[in-house]
């Protein structure tokens, strides 16, 4: 084959593709966010943490950088634990985390913060977790927390088990083994799912943890679980609601009714949850009300926080974090993340609360 004849056009095409595709995000079409005035913010904000926030952070960073062309936001979705560690060590501007700071962490020093000041947890990301299933001939499924826990800890192993039939009198449940699929990697989704089962059920028998405590089918990442449930036979699993595609989802028993997940119901349970007791007044760590009996609320949600300093050692950094996190929690920011990552927007009240605390962050 004549390599020169084909090689040259191919090389030109290759270079052209690289050159054309490397246009940056902040050269985009509209500056839809911001207050219209020219932004005076400059600098680079490095942050990291929960991978659940990854998709939303990408959208937030892109929109924020369009509004503030001189700002660069880097969010490293390295995991909640790693994110908190980096923040505590002073290596990042703020941390995204699926769990709030522990008492132990609050007792220590924060590297990025001004000496003798603390950091606070601000909820910025609410995502319902859907229980998905794939059973031929069954489109709708109602479960209560006890039955769901028994399915996932391996006590109930067949779809025609009396407990499931009792909750679904109208469905024709096949004589088929249940394959309960969990996340094989450590994950905040698992932590919130097991937390729900531990609190709302009497049959779970384990504590909340980000490693799934029982056996059964494991699959890597949200996409792995979704794909395993889709391709398997008699499967049930749990995943970020935004990723479940066309799979059927379980309606959970709350009070006397069965509630399917909706963003509104997810935001509702967060709005109805009390703050964790014994913490600073400006710390919005939530004690999620998993045992709710209000059928307006869907208790299986994941709340992810932005952990920021009350006062930054570097004032410029503080200004930048303040502007960015304020944007994340704002109505516009939540709408952007709802579109791109399928989050449930914060309720107006919570959003205001976050904004008022951020107003004091410097």
């Amino acid at each position, binding site marked *: 084959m004549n390599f020169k004849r084909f090689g040259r056009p191919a090389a030109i095409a290759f270079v052209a593709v690289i050159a054309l595709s490397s246009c940056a995000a902040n050269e985009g079409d509209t500056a839809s966010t911001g207050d219209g005035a020219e932004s005076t913010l400059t600098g680079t904000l490095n942050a990291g943490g929960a991978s659940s926030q990854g998709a939303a952070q990408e959208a937030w960073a892109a929109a924020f950088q369009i509004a503030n062309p001189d700002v660069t936001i880097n969010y490293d979705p*390295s995991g909640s*634990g790693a994110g908190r*560690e980096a923040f505590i060590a002073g290596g990042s501007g703020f941390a995204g985390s699926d769990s709030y700071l522990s008492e132990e962490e609050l007792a220590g020093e924060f590297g990025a913060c001004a000496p003798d000041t603390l950091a606070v947890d601000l909820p910025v990301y609410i995502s319902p977790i859907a229980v998905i299933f794939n059973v031929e001939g069954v489109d709708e499924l109602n479960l209560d927390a006890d039955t769901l826990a028994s399915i996932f800890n391996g006590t109930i192993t067949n779809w025609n088990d009396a407990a499931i039939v009792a909750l679904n009198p109208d469905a024709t449940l096949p004589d088929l083994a249940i394959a309960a*699929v969990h996340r*094989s990697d450590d*994950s905040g989704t698992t932590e919130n799912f097991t937390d729900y089962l531990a609190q709302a059920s009497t049959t779970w028998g384990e504590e909340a943890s980000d490693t799934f*405590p029982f056996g059964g*089918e494991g*699959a890597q990442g949200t996409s792995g679980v979704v794909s*395993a449930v889709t391709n398997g036979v008699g499967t049930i699993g749990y995943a970020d609601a935004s990723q479940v595609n066309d799979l059927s989802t379980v309606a959970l028993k709350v009070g006397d009714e069965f509630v399917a997940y909706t963003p509104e119901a997810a935001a509702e349970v967060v709005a109805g949850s009390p703050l964790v007791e014994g913490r600073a007044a400006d710390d919005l760590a939530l004690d999620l009300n998993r045992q709710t009996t209000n059928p307006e609320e869907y208790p299986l949600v994941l709340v992810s926080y932005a952990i920021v300093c009350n006062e930054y050692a570097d004032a410029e950094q503080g200004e930048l974090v303040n502007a960015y996190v304020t944007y994340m929690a704002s109505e516009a920011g939540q709408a952007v993340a709802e579109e791109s990552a399928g989050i449930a927007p914060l309720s107006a009240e919570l959003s205001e609360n976050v904004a008022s605390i951020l107003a004091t962050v410097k």
Partner: protein
Amino acid sequence: MTTTVAATTIKARQRPGDRVFSTATVVSGSLILAVLAAVALFLLVESLPAFVAEADAFSGETNNFMEYVGPLVFGTVWAAILALLMAVPVAIGIALFISHFAPRKLAQGLGYLIDLLAAVPSVVFGLWGITVLAPLVRPFYVTLTEWFGWFPLFEGPVSGTGRTILTVAVVLAVMILPIITAICREIFLQTPLLHEEAALALGATRWEMISMAVLPFGRPGIISASMLGLGRALGETMAVAMVLSPSAEVIFQLLTAENPTTIAANIALNFPEAHGVGVNILLATGLILFLVTLVVNMIARVIINSRKAFSGAN
């Protein structure tokens, strides 16, 4: 007995080119050793905290590092051996077909095709494994447990998604097939023509010629090819992590939902969220994997050396 010859070696005048070239080779040679030593040292230093970690640093019922890494080592070796069992016979078959049976044109095309398989990234194999292979083989697994369920390896219940260690082994077998085939083919092609012709002249059929002349000559080659394949199977990460439904136990059943996982896949799955001593534990399992592959390669070396005398290679 030739010491006198060595004493009268003629020394040529060293030109700059010679010096640059010889220095370059020496530097390259020592660089690879230095990199290897650096990796080993890094693993060793980083894994020290794992060996003395408290019981609560490990999840589940594991209390110390050895309990943690044991099932992983088993899973790693188990998956790799299963893959090797499937891949080696097929690879030898393909290699013999290419070297001794196929028409030359077909053989060349087939050779390219097999080499192409080696260039497919493992993520692609992983995706293929979960979306195509696993659902495809599941009905077959169900039949297998129905008929052979009394045999411990094929005990049910069958996994609902088909993502078992056997599926992983099939994926791994496909992945290591090209490298084993390529080396076997080259070895078989090097069988001295005289051996083959002698066998045929003695009245051997083609199969007898292959079993008498080609295979004995190629045996060390087949072993080293298998060891290279084994090395890849031991270290394969992405495909295993994506396809396997893992658990942290020693399980011999091939078709159930719970399967022993491999070290590499376990690191890939847990590293993103690991912190503190968790990172050290994962790195320490990496050190163990390093040692396992080292031992496997050393065993292969020993086998090759001891078998050399019986092959046609001398």
